[in-house]
């Protein structure tokens, strides 16, 4: 049973941490309930009727993901640097391969315009720009293959239809 003692301790510690977090936050948080004005997005001006859609350019996500790549690289580089001497040439080669692969991903991102903030020329070429005609066509429901509107979802994968293709259909 001895071997399971650390697990028990860990569980207790985990529970304690959770409990302490609740207790701590309730003790430290301001007691006074905030007023309606306090929770408004801005404490002045017109109260919006509807939530404004929060739109971020997708590039922000791209940058975040590129950051993760290099972040991970650093995560690996640090322990490697610590035991660099012991690993010797083998370690050097391995980390170079690793860095090389990470660099390739960077290369890929650059070539795909992930870091070009201006509207990319080749992207415009690849995707036909939206004209008022195509927009009208799209909105009026005319299926225009050249309009880059969202594809019409096949009902097959819709929850109801997926169920229908199961045995229930036979019933």
């Amino acid at each position: 049973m001895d071997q399971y003692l650390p697990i028990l301790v860990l569980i207790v510690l985990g529970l304690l941490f959770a409990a302490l977090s609740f207790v701590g936050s309730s003790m430290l948080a301001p007691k006074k309930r905030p007023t309606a004005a306090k929770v408004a997005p801005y404490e002045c001006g017109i109260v919006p009727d509807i939530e404004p859609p929060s739109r971020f350019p997708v590039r922000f996500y791209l940058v975040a993901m590129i950051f993760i790549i290099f972040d991970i690289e650093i995560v690996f580089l640090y322990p490697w640097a610590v035991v660099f001497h012991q690993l010797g040439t083998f370690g050097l080669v391995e980390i170079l391969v690793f860095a090389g692969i990470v660099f390739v991903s960077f290369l890929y991102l650059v070539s795909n315009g992930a870091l070009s903030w201006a509207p990319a020329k080749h992207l415009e070429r690849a995707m036909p720009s939206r004209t008022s005609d195509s927009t009208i066509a799209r909105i009026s429901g005319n299926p225009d293959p050249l309009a880059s509107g969202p594809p019409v979802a096949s009902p097959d994968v819709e929850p109801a239809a997926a169920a229908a293709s199961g045995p229930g259909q036979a019933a």
Partner: protein
Amino acid sequence: MSPSLLLGVAAATPRFRTPHIDYLSILPILIMMGGAVAIVVVSSLVRRQLRTGVGTLLAIVTSLAALGASLTQWADVADHGAKVTIAGAVAYDGFSVFIQVTVSIAMLLTVLVGDGYLRREDVGGPELYVLALLSASGAMVMGSANDLIVIFLGLEIMSIALYVLAAFNHRRTESGEAALKYFILGSFSSAIFVYGIALVYGATGSTNLPEIADYLSKNVVASNGVLLAGLALLLVGFGFKIAAVPFHMWSPDVYQGAPSPVTGFMAAVAKAGAFAALLRVFVSSFGAERADWQPIVWALAILSLVVGAVLALSQRDVKRMLAYSSINQAGFILLGVQAADGRGVAASLYYVFVYTFMIIGTFAVVTVLARTGDRGHDLSEYRGLAKRQPLLAGALAILLLAQAGVPFTTGFLAKFQVVAAAVDAHSYALAAVAMASGAIAAFFYLRVAIAMYSPAGASGDDASHEPAGAAGAGVGGEAGSAGSGSPAGSGMADPVGAAGGRGGAVGVAAPGVAMLSLQVLTDEAPSPEVAGRTVPVPALAATALGLAVAFTVVFGIVPAPIVDFAHRATLLFL
């Protein structure tokens, strides 16, 4: 010692003894991964228009190189015997080489099918190949892993790439939906798998497969419950990857939603990798515990056989039907696992190998027939195909018949062997259920064939073959589709027809590729009305299809080499 190393306090501590690495033993894996990196580099540097072409070329070269490396390995293993390398992490034996050959071939066929798809759909460049190569390398790792941790590593390499592949066609919402479902459930099952590894480690004190076997043969495990729970959870993890009932739920949705070439790849490679690891772990490491896990595999097999066959019956979407049929096929392969002896393993390996050709070939046809947008998967799309494109219909018919297990195809011997193995293992009920489900399965494979060979305009006749309950709905739907489709005569509801008029979208989508319409080779000239509905068959896809059909038929008639190959793979099993 370990704390000091981790903290790096003592620079004077002796050097790591880095393991000796036998590069030949992992050469195909390295080639696959290297090929993936190379494709990323080259495609980043060349002009955008050339990317798909260059990617295809490189991917074909990589697959062929991996195949060549695998065959070199085969000769090497045959000459020098099997061994464990890289600090016991990798098993280098006939079994692992067999899987590497299988996966290399699956990769090659997928590239051939994928090229036409990429050009037609215009959804991206060679990323498909990169991801597929990585996924394939993961399956190879699973095949040669000799350690539970390495198996998990391979599983994740394979799966994560597959998740992205499922979402590859970003213009189809189904594709994204499929990927998300697959990702969530896959992560779920991976977590369970890791938990299983942890429990097994807890019970035996090792994750290394030979060491586990060694330990189990020498000791009676005190807390057997931990080991048994670990086994159960490992089975869940594998069961998910091979889509065994009741862990199959994801597969119809994912098969349907994923891009068609990816579906074929998924069905072949994920199965190959998962079955390889399943066989190695359970038959070789936990062979002593077979009394505990055999009943579970038995139940999974029966459920897969029955549920797969029965639910496939009522599908009208061909991809969905193939998903259920692949569940059924997984049930058959489980027969060999359940037998848990040399014959069973050989039968399963043979099955996986020949199934690779059948399923990728089938999906090659599905891909081609789906037309731009990858959505023409309804059975009605296949109606009258034999009149329009007899060779395409003939090839699909052969592959479907092979999957149904018709003699003189590889599929027959595959089914025959697993059933024989089950009978030898005295699992008579299982064998009987397998044969019954095979009979049911023949029905839905034949249904597609019948649709292809019946006239395009005919409606309702197919509905009479439907299970009685579905007939009502079938007639209605059928009549509706025929009513809207056939008076137009040329099926112009299809975007291809429309786009074709607008300057040949198909031609634009495939610059520089010889579009070999199989129509050229057909026996009789189609009427203009019929010709309007023919689909172009890219030369590479036709090559893949030809390879698949040729393999299926030739080695169905001359099965000995492949049977022998699978058999020797198990002889060189560690």
